[in-house]
């Protein structure tokens, strides 16, 4: 199989790119960043489509990773030759795998071909994408052989085969342990234990069927016993029914007795009624008549009492006597009261006037005394001029004496001065005396005038007083004359009180006179009413058949009281009779009298009761025993049901256990077979692949390294894990340098391809896998490329010209 050419529409950074390839080695030398990895990925995608659809990581999801940078159409085509025919495969990748388009055309006719489907890679090479990636598709990142995928992008099981073979031991150990732990034959095995438990439970459950039969038996026995009990209960019921019948007979007897008693009582009541009626002597008055007659008699009594208490008013009588000479009218008395008041006022004025008169007299006396005293003092002023003249004369004499008797000069001035003073004093005194005399005379005249005036006033007052006293006396006389009409002789000062008393009496008398008139009228009415009541009462008594000779309401009332009591007694007796009759009717209604019914005697009943009691005791004892037996049967049944419950629980558990055991068995068999098949696979796998792979690996390694001793230098286990012998010991390939790792990786991949593809070889896509190879191995690498390109179409991409 070989690729003839490719056309990349858009794929990652590559756009509108066309390349053609020959058989053998095809070297694509391009600088870094041109898109060599995209080219390699494009070729793989042409065979297998894009991978990592469900991945979110850009590096793992090729659809995301290789989206065209220019947003153009995502896809391209590849022309290839296989099985002697040329084809063109076209893929449109789109944004989702469901939008992916695939087309295969015959390159010669350009007609669509169905020789291969979209799983082109698998159909051409018979390996899947993963295997293709581990063998024919090498990039600088995945070529390294490190057994565990140490580089990013190599996580997809670069050496999955080796890994799973390596895990064979672990897996087998797990399977073995599981089989041992769950063994159905080992005593410690889970399934064995489950089987044992199932067996034990089944053994236990064998008791269930007989137990159910036993329960049925017990139920049947219980039913029989219940029926027997029912029979005994029936017998007991019969006895008790008869006892009830006897009790009924006894009741009948008692009822008959009660009925007779009630009848007797009724007769007694009726007899009493008759006797009481006879007491009335033929006519039984009605209670109403008696009540009315009683009311009449009571009314008469009440009226009599009222009339008796109704007498003339004593005060009225007294006043009638007082006013036998006539009743004064109100105005007349008021006039007298007014006169009395005037007298009283005059007497009050009299006293005042007398006091005034007394004062006037006293004042007159005082003024007279003052006038007399003035007259006496008036003579003093006649002495004063004489004394003044004498005094003057004395002074003048003294002056002359001095003058003429040659008094010393030094005394002369003093004497002269003294004389002058005396003269001046004389003049001043004289003037004073004149002024005071004038004043004194004026006051004396004023006193005299006042004394005269006082005397005149006193005389006037006295005159007025006498006039008033005369008037008062006249009025008093008039009042006294007025009071004498009612034989009243008032003392001084009592007139007014008496007048008021008369006035009050007069008013009261007038009032009482009116009341007396009303009283007299009413008395007449009561008397009339009494007479009417007496007539009515007599009529009523006649109707009632009262005996004659009843006089006075008291005796009539006594008669009516007795009659009333008798009537009450009669009524009570009638009620008793009615109640007795009613009671008898009710009794008969409740217990109808059955004439002709045979009534048993109490002795007969007691005898039969005794027999029945014995029978009942025997039946009850039997019933008790049967109930105890039934109870024991029920307990037995309860125990059996409990056991059945327990067994049914076991059955439930067994059911679950069986399900569990069946699952465990199933799983056990799966595990067992899995172990067998894994073991078988391991044997086959080892036999089929390992030797040819080792031979091819050694050959390629010799080619690449130039060393022929690869057969001893390397060891490959069933898991394709490669170890290199170094300094006498084997070391894992991943422990080697990058260059060695790459060499080992290239060799093992080519070895696998050789073993796997003996006829149609796939093209080998190499994306700079020799990048870590040192200069010393470059020649060998070139030879390696040349050699493999003899059998394979190799598309080798590098950015190094020296490695091409």
């Amino acid at each position, binding site marked *: 199989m070989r690729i003839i050419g490719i056309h990349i529409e858009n794929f990652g950074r590559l756009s509108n790119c066309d390349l053609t390839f020959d058989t053998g080695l095809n070297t694509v030398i391009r600088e870094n960043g041109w898109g060599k990895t995209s080219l390699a990925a494009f070729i793989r995608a042409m065979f297998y489509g894009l991978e990592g659809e*469900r991945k979110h990581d850009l590096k793992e999801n090729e659809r995301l990773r290789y989206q065209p940078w220019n947003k153009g159409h995502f896809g391209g085509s590849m022309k290839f030759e296989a099985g002697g025919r040329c084809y063109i495969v076209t893929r449109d990748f789109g944004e989702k795998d469901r939008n992916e388009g695939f087309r295969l055309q015959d390159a010669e006719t350009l007609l669509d071909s169905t020789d291969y489907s979209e799983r082109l890679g698998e159909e051409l090479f018979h390996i899947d994408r*993963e295997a293709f990636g581990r063998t024919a598709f090498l990039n600088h990142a995945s070529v390294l052989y490190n057994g565990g995928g140490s580089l990013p992008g190599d996580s997809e099981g670069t050496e999955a085969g080796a890994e799973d073979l390596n895990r064979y031991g672990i897996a087998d150990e*797990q399977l073995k342990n599981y089989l041992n732990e769950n063994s159905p034959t080992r005593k410690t095995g889970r399934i064995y234990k489950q089987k044992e438990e199932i067996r034990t439970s089944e053994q236990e459950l064998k008791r269930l069927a007989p137990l159910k039969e036993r329960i049925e038996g017990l139920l049947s026995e219980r039913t029989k016993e219940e029926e027997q009990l029912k029979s005994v209960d029936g017998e007991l019921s019969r006895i008790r029914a008869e006892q009830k019948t006897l009790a009924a007979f006894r009741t009948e007897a008692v009822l008959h007795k009660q009925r007779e008693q009630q009848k007797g009582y009724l007769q007694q009541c009726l007899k009493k009624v008759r006797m009481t009626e006879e007491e009335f002597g033929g006519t039984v008055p009605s209670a109403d008549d008696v009540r009315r007659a009683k009311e009449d008699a009571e009314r008469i009594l009440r009226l009599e009492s009222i009339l008796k208490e109704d007498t003339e008013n004593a005060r009225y009588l007294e006043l009638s006597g007082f006013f036998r000479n006539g009743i004064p009218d109100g105005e007349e008395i008021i006039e007298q009261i007014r006169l009395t008041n005037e007298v009283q006022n005059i007497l009050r004025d009299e006293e005042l006037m007398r006091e005034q008169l007394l004062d006037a007299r006293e004042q007159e006396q005082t003024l007279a005394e003052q006038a007399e005293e003035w007259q006496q003092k008036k003579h003093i002023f006649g002495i004063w001029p004489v004394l003044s003249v004498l005094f003057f004369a004395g002074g003048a004499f003294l002056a002359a004496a001095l003058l003429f008797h040659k008094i010393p000069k030094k005394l002369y001035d003093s004497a002269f001065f003294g004389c002058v003073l005396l003269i001046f004093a004389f003049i001043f005194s004289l003037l004073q005396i004149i002024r005071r005399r004038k004043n004194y005379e004026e006051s004396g005249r004023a006193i005299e005038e006042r004394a005269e005036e006082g005397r005149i006033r006193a005389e006037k007052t006295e005159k007025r007083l006498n006039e008033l006293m005369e008037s008062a006396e006249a009025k008093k006389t008039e009042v006294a004359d007025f009071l004498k009409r009612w034989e009243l002789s008032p003392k001084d000062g009592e007139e007014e009180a008496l007048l008021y008393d008369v006035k009050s009496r007069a008013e009261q008398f007038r009032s009482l006179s009116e009341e007396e008139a009303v009283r007299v009228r009413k008395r007449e009415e009561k008397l009339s009413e009494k007479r009417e009541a007496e007539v009515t009462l007599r009529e009523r008594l006649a109707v009632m058949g009262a005996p004659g000779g009843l006089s006075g309401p008291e005796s009539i009332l006594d008669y009516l009281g007795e009659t009333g009591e008798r009537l009450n007694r009669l009524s009570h007796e009638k009620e008793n009779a009615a109640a007795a009759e009613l009671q008898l009717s009710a009794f008969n209604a409740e217990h109808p009298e059955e004439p002709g019914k045979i009534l048993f005697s109490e002795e007969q009943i007691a005898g039969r009761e005794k027999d029945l009691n014995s029978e009942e005791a025997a039946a009850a004892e039997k019933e008790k025993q049967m109930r105890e037996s039934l109870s024991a049967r*029920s307990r037995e049944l309860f125990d059996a049901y409990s056991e059945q419950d327990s067994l049914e629980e076991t059955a439930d*558990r067994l059911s679950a256990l069986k399900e569990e055991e069946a699952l465990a068995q199933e799983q056990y068999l799966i595990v067992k077979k899995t172990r067998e*098949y894994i073991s078988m696979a391991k044997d086959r796998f080892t036999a089929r692949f390992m030797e040819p792979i080792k031979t091819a690996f050694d050959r390629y390694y010799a080619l690449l390294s130039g060393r022929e001793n690869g057969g001893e230098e390397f060891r490959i286990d069933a898991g394709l894990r490669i170890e290199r012998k170094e300094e006498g010991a084997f070391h894992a390939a991943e422990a080697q340098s990058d260059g060695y790792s790459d060499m080992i990786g290239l060799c093992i991949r080519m070895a*696998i391809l050789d073993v796997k593809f003996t006829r149609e070889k796939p093209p080998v896509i190499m994306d700079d896998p020799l990048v870590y190879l040192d200069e010393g191995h470059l020649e060998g690498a070139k030879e390696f490329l040349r050699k493999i390109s003899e059998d394979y179409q190799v598309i080798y991409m590098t950015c190094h010209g020296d490695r091409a």
Partner: protein
Amino acid sequence: MKIIHTADVHLDAKCVRHFPPKQAKERRDELLLTFLALIKTAAEQGVEAIIIAGDLFDGVKVSATARDAVLSAFKNNSEITFYYLCGNHDALNPAELFGEIPANVKLFGNGFTSYELTGSDGESVVITGAEAVGTDSAVLASSLLLDHAKCNIVVLHGQETAGSGAGEKEVIPIRSYRNRGIDYLALGHIHAPKSEKLDARGIYAYCGCLEGRGFDECGVRGYRLLTVQNGQITEEFVPFAGRTMWELSVPVTGLYTSEEVIEKARELARVQGIKENDMVKLVLCGEKDLDAEIDADYIGKTLFEDWHFVKASDRTTAYTDYSRFRLDPTLRGEFVRNIEEAASRGELTEEEAGKMIRLGVRLLAGEERLS
């Protein structure tokens, strides 16, 4: 007049087959709580009778809690008449179990017993029932005598059969109850609700259990509400279970991770209307790709956050693309090719081959730990 028909409550059922001990205990408690809630609802809605068509209790081992709670509920709801017919699981006689039978609890015996019930609206119905335990089913059926003029409900417990029931016990020969004057044949024993025409006059119905006890009782559960009006009975199924049991099959074909499966399961649950309170048995089915990392245990544990209880089981078949290994020059390739050959020779079934390949390949890849 409203009447509730319930049955197969199975109080104190162990529930250990489908649940671990803790959940089994919780489920037991829930069975009791739901039954008590049913009575409360009946009282609130003015239901005048509750027919319990057998298997109120699961067996002879009745806890004091369940016994006392049921007795109290009977006593405290004296306005409701309970017609309690013992089923094959009610091993204990009610009188023995409760010690006393409240006046509002009516029992049935081996032969047919009838009770006439008159509702507050004046509607009247005759409720007749017989415990079929230990009695020939054909004989029992022939002993039924009803007044055709009345509205009749017949209560029985057993498996329906198309046969005559002759020589069989605890079965209900439906055809023998046709044209016998039955308006409603209230049945118990089958745990899934079912209602069908009995004859021209009546219907027969299994109300199903009140709560599912395990994943063999998946689906909506509840009771039947009967309405008697003008002497006619109409019925409807009323979902009432506190939790619904679901078996949710999740096809994993084309899915590669547990997370994808969890998402798929959630989506399917949404479509089916599975609620947070429900219990789910998750069944992974379809083909599991060799590269798929789908762990049923992990998925179950994760989905515990979504529902009250999850039990996950893996019933997938391994998908094997033989062609992928045909050209694989590794031990795995050799292993798969050997299996393919054996399968083609008929030495292995496809299912076995798939499982072996999945196990072997994953073991060799170091991706599997056998335990």
